[in-house]
């Protein structure tokens, strides 16, 4: 059973293979993404994060989930030598950490409901669990950053997370999504496989900001693998990446 809904301005896809799956778990998971969106969206003026950014709410007064996100963001900032930072020009934008965290929480809802074979996808980031409909590892493609209708790699994944950070092509130019005025110099996309999507997403975001050094940052991290594509279409990948590659 599989459903796609638009949440937070991006497609969220949930597929559950296990027998006994009903519509209720889909409502629970999509409902959870709606809750996260209402709380953390910087586009919504009445969201909790917007209240904090307008100084109408202090962090001490904030909800436990908001406090947790700020704590995790600060931990990630320290672990990535400042390459990850939710503060920009005095405003907080935790979207770089909230998406992976939300996918991971959604997968936890499924796990606690007793499901074992499923994936949760939100805007290109994925948590996979167990096997796919054919009883095999989940087959995950890495999108071609120069042509979104193509994939450039096929991976076999089970019980892990994969996140891709990158730029997008607009007209003939490639822009850095963090600064639309400035074309990115070298790196177009960086995919990171990690023990779960929360870990993969936050380190993919930080390592992408490091440009060419990012793949070496991932290489040094135990339990993580990465595939980086530069603007010439050359890929650099970590030493353990190949074991996830499907040649079938």
């Amino acid at each position, binding site marked *: 059973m599989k459903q796609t809904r638009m949440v937070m*301005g*991006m497609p969220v*896809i949930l*597929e559950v293979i296990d027998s006994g799956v009903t519509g209720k778990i889909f409502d629970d998971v999509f409902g959870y993404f709606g809750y996260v969106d209402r709380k953390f969206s910087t*586009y919504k003026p009445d969201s909790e994060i917007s209240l904090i950014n307008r100084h109408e709410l202090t962090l001490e007064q904030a909800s436990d989930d908001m406090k947790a996100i700020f704590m995790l963001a600060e931990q990630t900032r320290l672990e990535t030598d400042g390459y990850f930072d939710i503060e920009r020009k005095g405003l907080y934008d935790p979207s770089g950490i909230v*998406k992976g965290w939300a996918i991971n929480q959604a997968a936890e809802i499924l796990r606690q409901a007793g499901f074992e074979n499923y*994936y949760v*996808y939100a*805007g*290109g*980031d*994925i948590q996979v669990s167990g096997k*796919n*409909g054919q009883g095999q590892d*989940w*087959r*995950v*493609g*890495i*999108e*071609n*950053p120069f*042509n*979104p209708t*193509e*994939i*450039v*790699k*096929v991976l076999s994944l089970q019980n892990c997370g*994969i*996140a*891709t*950070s*990158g*730029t*997008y092509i*607009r007209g003939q130019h490639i822009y850095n*999504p963090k600064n639309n005025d400035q074309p990115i110099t070298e790196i177009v*996309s960086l*995919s990171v496989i990690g023990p779960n999507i929360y870990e993969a997403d936050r380190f993919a975001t930080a390592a992408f900001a490091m440009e060419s*050094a990012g*793949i*070496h940052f991932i*290489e040094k991290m135990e339990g993580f693998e990465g595939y980086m*594509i530069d603007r010439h*279409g*050359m*890929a*650099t*990948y*970590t*030493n353990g990446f190949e074991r996830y590659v*499907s040649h*079938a």
Partner: protein
Amino acid sequence: MSRKQTNQPSDFVQKIKKFFLSAFVVLTFLAYFLHERSTNSSNASTSNAVANTSAVPTVIATSPGVVFKNGTYTGPSVDATYGQVQVQVAIQNGKIANVQFLDYPHDRRTSQQINSQVMPWLEQEAIQAQSANVDLISGATLTSEAFVNSLQSALQSAQN
């Protein structure tokens, strides 16, 4: 000199890069053939001496015209003072598709100290479109602005 001045600097840098890449591969092949010859020869030191001196400039001078044959080529294990280095080169359509390090200095204490200070060697490849079926795709998220623009253009083309 006059040719250098008429070329755009970026073209020139590109040519230099290609030139050195070609030279590197040719040298790897040369080292491989010399290695092959040295293992068959009773006097290996003579072959090594040739590799280190007169043969090298000659090969570099002719390298831009060399056409590579498709296949996977493994170089000899070469002493890099702090350990052995061995590379494997894959050629597809006459071009370098992949350079893989089969061995690099890692077993001696000096090498480990040096390697901990520099970035490790990572494998590279040219990306290639895959035709296999997948369950789902990981990609960079479009910003909401880009998403809306993309959606609009998609809807426009759907109307035409």
